[in-house]
């Protein structure tokens, strides 16, 4: 529904009568037609996802697939893994209870949130190039299901990730043993400020959301949803902050390990030990790892800086729109009430004669 007007690759959603190749690239997605599938406990809602695009790798100009909520979750998780540093758009909550009721309101709100989710990805100049996005938007249901079941559950983690987990545990243990319990953290004052801002923002928004919830009950005006979306976005940012912290820690730890290895290596060089060549080999490997870790971290930092600007921009836009809709609705409601009461006045006047 929302077209890629602000994507970095430019291009509006207009379809000019020129030939497709000279048209600016566009990618438009809509999530529609929720349909209840299955029965009882296994019931779920499926959605039609319609993609209109002229991107080269995509089957254009239009493709329709059927997706369910867990497919969206898969997409979000994959993007989160692959694009560290970028604020992945948030998903509506997975509700296990409300699901059973499947009220029309709930379904519609979820559909809208999912639509916004995919569109934000499609609009993002980096994320829109993701392979996983293409799979999500284009693959047939069978492929999608396979991909989804592969990556869910505890087996989600690839072997390298498992190693990372062990290393994490290892370093934590050694930290405790060595008596340095303090986690390794960046000491960047601007970043500190940003982190604090994000955490406090979440609290403020949560409170505002509480009041919007009460208001919604009174006025049937949904201001709650935009606020919820805001909160989810902030939570997603927290995820990215965690990733950045991870990357930073890895970098620091590797640097330490490298230093230690260097000391060992020098020792071996001096003693002309037979372990020297092996140690050299390991040392080179570690150095490569270290460079990679540093690069990863720096990428995240760079991306985050860009993302913050984009996020603030988008939020101002989103909230501005939400305010507008809310105010419009309130005005309509109040004027309707005034009209209704006003219509009584002639009848009251008529009473005087009776």
């Amino acid at each position: 529904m929302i077209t890629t007007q602000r994507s970095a690759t430019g291009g509006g959603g207009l379809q000019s009568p020129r030939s497709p190749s000279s048209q600016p690239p566009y990618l438009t997605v809509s999530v529609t037609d929720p349909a209840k599938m299955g029965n009882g406990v296994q019931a779920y809602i499926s959605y039609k996802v319609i993609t209109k695009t002229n991107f080269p790798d995509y089957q254009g100009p239009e493709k329709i697939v059927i997706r369910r909520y867990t497919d969206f979750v898969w997409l979000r998780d994959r993007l989160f893994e692959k694009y560290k540093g970028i604020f992945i758009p948030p998903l509506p909550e997975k509700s296990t209870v409300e699901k059973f009721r499947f009220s029309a309101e709930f379904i519609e709100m979820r559909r809208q949130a999912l639509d916004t989710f995919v569109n934000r990805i499609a609009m993002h100049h980096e994320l829109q190039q993701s392979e996983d996005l293409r799979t999500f938007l284009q693959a047939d249901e069978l492929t999608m299901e396979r991909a989804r079941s592969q990556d869910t559950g505890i087996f989600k983690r690839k072997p390298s990730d498992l190693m990372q987990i062990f290393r994490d545990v290892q370093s934590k243990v050694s930290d405790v043993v060595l008596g340095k319990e303090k986690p390794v953290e960046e000491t960047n004052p601007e970043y500190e400020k940003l982190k604090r801002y994000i955490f406090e923002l979440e609290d403020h928004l949560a409170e505002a959301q509480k009041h919007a919830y009460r208001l919604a009950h009174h006025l049937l005006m949904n201001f709650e949803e935009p606020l919820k979306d805001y909160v989810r976005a902030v939570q997603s940012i927290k995820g990215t902050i965690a990733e950045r912290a991870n990357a930073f820690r890895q970098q620091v730890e590797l640097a330490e390990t490298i230093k230690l290895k260097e000391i060992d290596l020098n020792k071996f060089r001096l003693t002309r030990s037979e372990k020297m060549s092996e140690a050299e080999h390991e040392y080179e490997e570690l150095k490569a790892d270290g460079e990679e870790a540093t690069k990863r971290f720096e990428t995240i930092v760079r991306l985050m800086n860009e993302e913050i600007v984009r996020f603030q921009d988008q939020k101002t836009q989103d909230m501005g729109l939400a305010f507008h809709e809310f105010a419009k609705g309130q005005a309509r409601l109040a004027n309707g009430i005034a009209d209704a009461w006003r219509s009584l006045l002639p009848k009251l006047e008529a009473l005087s004669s009776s």
Partner: protein
Amino acid sequence: MKGSENKKDRISSSKEESEEEILFHLDDSSLTSKSFSNYRSAMSILSDDSDHPLATPAETDPLLSPPSPPPPVKNPNSNNDSRIDPLTYAHVNFMPPNRDDQSLSVENPSEESEIVVPLSTPPYLKITVSNPHKEVESSNSIVPGGNTYVTYLITTKTNMPEFGGPQFTVRRRFKDVVTLSDRLLEAYRGFFIPPRPEKSVVESQVMQKHEFVEQRRNALEKYLQRLAKHPVIRQSDELRVFLQVQGKLPLLPTAAVTSRMLDGATRLSKQLLGDTSGGGSVRIQPEDVVQPAKSRWDFLRIMKEMNQAVSNDWGGSKPSIAEEDTGFLENKKRLLNLEKQLTNASKQAELFVKAQQDMAETMGEFGLAFIKVTKFENDQAVLDTQKKRAADMKNLATTAIKASRLYRELNSHTVNHLDMLHDHMGLLLGVHNAFSDRSSALLTVQTITTELDSLYSQAEKLESSSSKTYGSDKSKTLKLGEVREAIRVTEDAKNSAMREYERIKENNRTEIDRLDTERKADFKNMLKGFVLNQVAISEKIGMEWGKIAGETSGYAEHGG
């Protein structure tokens, strides 16, 4: 006066929180509690205040010590000149309906002169109650500290000639009001007299002192104004004496305590018992029968009447004089039904007011929450977009708070208007009293009739047997003379009682008509005022939101 000073503080501090200043006067910790208790207390005080005509200059009468500040209600009126028509129309009806006789003549609330008005204009009688003072009972009691009680300043403004002055004041205590009420009830049987405020001993213990005094002051004012509204009562001596005579109230608590009645009561009860054996002529004053058998000295008479009542209900024969007026009975039924309907309407009104209150609170809290976020974003803003968003949020929050205030204003007027329901429910209590005046007068007539009948049959018996027995002639003749005398007196009493009964019936009749007319007019005004308020305020609210919607319309062009 402590009460109004508090009001002043609270109202001015809630004025302080005008849109611009909110951001700078906030600090997060005290935010929700302080400003809301301000709102709530200002508004609850406003709704108690509902009887002060809201926009009249008479409120600044120097006789009423510290003049209460114009309620915040006025502010939106002065701000918003753009929509003249609904506002001025609605403004007129912001006046509490029919609180004084001005409303009988003209719907012109702002012109209330303090000088006496030429006699050709319709009569008006305006009473206000203010300035409670604590005073000590100057009794010679052993208990130190003495007994304290509260007096209230009663201010009357009138153009009625009986009062001989345009304006005067007097100090009275609650006990005086009870006396006034009791005397009116005795003197004006058959009239629909508004019920006086209750003594409420429990409440006076439970509530805060100044809150209780304020509540009572308000209730007293309402009561006196209702008395002033009644075309007959307002001309009564009792009321005039209450309003004018300085010093101790020269009304006795109840007519039955006069020495005349003391004797009269014992005489009456003797007579009703048929106790003529003591010799000596005991004369019933016929006036005695026109009072209801209330005082404790009358308990013998009460007994007699109770017997009569029982025999009316359970006895074999119907009394010769009974309620036959079908028109009256229909009206009675109708009024009882009306009472039920009003009770129902009152419950609905309560729910409605509560809902409006909820709305106001929720909207206000919503706005304040956003003010907090705004302040936060402003403090932390690094990028321009953040500042812009903060500005948008502030506008939204400010509008929400404006809307909340408007809802509160609407609610306080709604309470005002719907209070008319309670007024009339109160009057229906007066109706019950008036109808029972009628039935007790009837009962008195029936009792005397029964008495008379038995006297007649006594006389008959004596007459027919006088010729039979020899020797007891003299005592019989004596006895017959006594019975005949008793008959004469009792016939007088019966005539008196019948006249009283008829008088009360007539009062009932005129009162029913008067009340029906008054109620129609009152309710029509109430509904009109209520609806106009709804229209005016809803329009204002719609306008505020419309403004913001316009200002943010730029965002809509970007999106879908």
